[in-house]
């Protein structure tokens, strides 16, 4: 068996063993399904409510993607601005870091008041926590090229714009993708939190509603769906990254 196979199969086996244990224990101990449903019960709930789950997943996915795009653009813009303006860096950095000390839970209700119940307050919560890893990573990435490379460009008469487009921007791409990967996981959390605070649809909303109705199996089904969403986003990002950074893969 090749290593690739093992890499795929090992986590699946572990998951199967854990689910099996869970199934056996909940059944043999007679745990009521409103406390902890067995995996089979969750699977049934997932299958019977699949269409509804898909609908809510689409809403949440929209919020996550919007949050990532907003947070990504803001994070990238801030990193570039801070890179080119030391004064702006002095002024902004403490604020950027302070903004990360405020729990999003504290801001989310305000955003609902300001923006209503739609997609935007959730996307904003997602963006607010997603932009930080992007600022940090892109700032490092823009500094990645050595001084010699910058001097080479200058000696060839390159303008500042050319140095940015042809040197700093491509050099910062690996860091941008690292930041985006962290940001993706954070955006999933952000969108869900946004939905908990106030929503009419979305997986977070579904969780909250099901929890109130003691439909714990549906809560878990929504969690499974959310995990699948996260994997889908992460996988998509990996594919884009491999294409954009083809030069890194070869050796």
């Amino acid at each position: 068996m090749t290593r690739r196979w093992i890499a795929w199969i090992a986590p699946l086996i572990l998951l199967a063993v854990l689910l099996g244990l869970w199934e056996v224990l909940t059944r043999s101990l007679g745990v009521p399904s409103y406390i902890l449903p067995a995996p089979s019960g969750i699977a049934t709930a997932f299958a019977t409510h699949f269409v509804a789950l898909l609908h809510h997943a689409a809403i949440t996915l929209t919020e996550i993607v919007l949050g990532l795009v907003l947070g990504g653009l803001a994070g990238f813009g801030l990193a570039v601005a801070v890179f080119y303006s030391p004064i702006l860096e002095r002024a902004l950095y403490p604020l950027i870091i302070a903004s990360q000390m405020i729990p999003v839970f504290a801001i989310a209700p305000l955003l609902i008041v300001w923006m209503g119940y739609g997609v935007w307050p959730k996307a904003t919560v997602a963006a607010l926590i997603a932009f930080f890893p992007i600022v940090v990573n892109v700032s490092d990435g823009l500094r990645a090229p050595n001084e010699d490379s910058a001097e080479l460009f200058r000696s060839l008469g390159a303008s500042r714009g050319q140095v940015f487009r042809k040197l700093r921007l491509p050099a910062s791409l690996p860091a941008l993708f690292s930041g985006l990967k962290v940001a993706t996981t954070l955006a999933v959390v952000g969108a869900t939190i946004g939905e908990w605070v106030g929503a009419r649809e979305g997986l977070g909303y579904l969780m909250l509603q099901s929890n109130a109705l003691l439909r714990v199996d549906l809560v878990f089904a929504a969690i499974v769906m959310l995990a699948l969403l996260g994997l889908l986003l992460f996988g998509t990002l990996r594919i884009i990254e491999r294409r954009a950074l083809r030069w890194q893969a070869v050796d």
Partner: protein
Amino acid sequence: MGNLRFEVRVDGLCKAFPGRTGPIPVIDSLSFSVRHGTWTTFLGPSGCGKTTLLRLLAGLIEPDAGSVRVIDASMHLPNMAAYFPQHDTLLPWRTALGNAVLASEIEGRPLAHARSEARELLEHFGLAGFESHYPSQLSGGMRQRLALIRTFLAHRDVLLLDEPLGALDPLTRTILQDWLLEIWGELHKTIVLVTHDVEEALVLSDRILVLSPRPATVERDVVVRLPRPRDRASGSFAERKGSILDLLLGAP
């Protein structure tokens, strides 16, 4: 452009960098001239200010005093010189061809022409078939050749080379020295080279300016009259090498 007749005149060049206890002079009233089409090498111990000198010539930093003039050419030296930095500056995200056309791209020359010209040069100088390879896929010697080809493709009359072969193993180094000579013979460039390798200086140069330890001044001006290609094993070569080494090591 290649047949331009000119002379670079450097007069009383001084440069100091701020240190903890005041400015540290790196270059102290350095004067020399370089005639077009010749190969001039600055030879000196590590940290004597050779790189600073090249950066001054390339116009990347300003001298504290002194001047760099080009006689009988209407241009300033930085605009007619291509600088080859000491550290690897190939762009890892560009293919060999993409790296080779960088200068043309920056100067806004037509890209199609730059590409065909770069392809020709890559092929002619031993990189045929590697046009679409990334730098990480090339050997150390090939990377260095690529970086040098990129410098030639800047179409400048003067090449300022900062230890272009410094990071290579001795064998590759020797091969590339001969290769550089061949190219220099074909392209009619004016080369200013900086190195700490006495043999390299003797194999390549018309003239060797031996620099003193910091602050750099010209310790000795050696005109190498040996015909090229030079035999590294010959007696006269070894004799010259010995006398320059003595000078560098401070022997009486």
